[in-house]
């Protein structure tokens, strides 16, 4: 685990201030403030529909909030009006999806290489060398020529991680990346992410894997009803927090024995 840096020692890589977002009449985010520093791993936990995935999509500009400020890597995202500027920022931010979303018509190697070659215009041989290194890193050497349809869910997700890393991102967003996997393959994906974070990858993870979040995070954020209800170091959230709602959520997931007598835990 990385040592948390002292607060305000350098400007955060991601900074959200008072972010409000609605889909039609449904208010999804009701004033979110969030800081992610370089080299830090931040986990977002909380019940379904609390706006976790929407926060990730605001950070890479896939969704534009109606109100609030978003600064990412020195760019004021909320002030960008041209799609081209948002695209330029997205190239610097990796995104890994719950359902992998690989390109089904491309081989594993092509899935990883297509964006650096076609979008960044990098030389193919150099990109392919990098892609093979990444495949090695996600423990899928030898699968270069396979198609997504021939891989298990866990393997596809690791290809998706390599695809995001191929752009050499400054930040990677993980959106419930193990939720679509069977219990046996969850471990292999988490092991890969754990290694990346140990190596200093800046990341924001939306996850329901409480143990994992506790183990790898520098900061854990609990969201509910479009607001950040609690945040702090993992120990503070998982063990010493005095917010009954957070405790109920964590214990309801069966992660550990209740720290205090929370009985209204959510069954999943």
């Amino acid at each position, binding site marked *: 685990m990385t040592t948390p840096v002292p607060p305000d020692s350098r400007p955060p890589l991601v900074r959200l201030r008072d972010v409000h977002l609605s889909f039609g009449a449904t208010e999804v985010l009701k004033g979110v403030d969030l800081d992610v520093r370089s080299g830090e791993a931040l986990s977002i936990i909380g019940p379904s529909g609390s706006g976790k995935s929407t926060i990730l999509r605001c950070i890479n500009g896939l969704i534009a909030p109606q109100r609030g400020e978003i600064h990412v890597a020195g760019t004021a995202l909320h002030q960008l009006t041209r799609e081209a500027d948002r695209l330029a920022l997205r190239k610097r931010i*990796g995104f890994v999806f719950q359902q992998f979303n690989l390109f089904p018509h491309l081989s594993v190697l092509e899935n990883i290489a297509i*964006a650096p070659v076609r979008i960044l215009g990098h030389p193919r041989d150099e990109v392919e060398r990098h892609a093979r290194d990444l495949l090695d890193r996600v423990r899928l050497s030898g699968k270069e020529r396979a198609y997504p349809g021939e891989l298990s869910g866990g393997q596809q997700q690791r290809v*998706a991680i390599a695809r995001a890393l191929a752009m050499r991102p400054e930040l990677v967003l993980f959106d419930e990346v193990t939720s679509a996997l069977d219990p046996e393959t969850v471990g292999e994906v988490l092991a890969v992410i754990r290694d990346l974070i140990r190596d200093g990858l800046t990341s924001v993870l939306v996850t329901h894997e409480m143990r994992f979040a506790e183990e790898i995070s520098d900061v854990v954020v609990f969201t509910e009803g479009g607001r950040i209800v609690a945040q702090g170091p993992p120990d503070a959230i998982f063990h010493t927090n005095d917010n009954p709602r957070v405790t109920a959520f964590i214990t309801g997931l069966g992660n550990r024995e209740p720290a205090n007598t929370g009985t209204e835990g959510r069954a999943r």
Partner: protein
Amino acid sequence: MADPLLLDLVKTAKSYGINVGFLTSPHERDIWLEGFRTTLTLVATMIPVSLAAGMALAAALTARQRWLALPARVFVELTRNTPTLVQLSCAFLGLNMLISQSLGGAGQNPFGAFFWVVLVVGLHGAAYHAEALRAGIEAVPDTTLEAARALGFNRLEILRWVELPLALRIALPTIVNNLVTLVKLTTVGSAVAVGEITYASIMIWTQRDNVVELMVVILVFFSAINLVVSQIGLWLERRLAVPGLGVRS
């Protein structure tokens, strides 16, 4: 003057009641052979024209900009819903005449009947290709598009690297179907005196009583072309087949 072997052939055929006497006339023989060449040239130019225009039309049909999507939709509807023969007449007798006039005489007009046949029939095929491709483009899941956008693909890059390759695989059987129809539609060229094989045959059989003989040749000729087209289509389908995608896996 005529090849003795050819004379023999014509004589033998005649003994079986088959009239191919026109082969001994160099003039008629040239018209006939030129007919084969012209049909093949029409097919060879029309197929790429229809495919390129079809992809452009499909892109326009699925564009988010109304100024692109609306004209494309109007064009597709007009082209599909009116007889090709009438479109060709309008283009060749109407539009072409206007161009000739504005350029100061038919001699100045760079466009001939062949051009108009390729353009009108090619775009007719394109309208059908576009609809087939549109179905394929709309079948690409939103999640796949979101992944491309997250990687920094712009609208055109998504179309080129994600939507069209996937749409092509879905639409290929329909596109081959369209191409088979397109090959047969080259015969409307005869209406504006493009000397393709039906036009050439008509020229010959109005002078000689050999309609059946030349008809049979035309039928065999088009069957052969379309056999090649559909075989190439099947080969492409197999080539592009991807494990876990589509029916064949």
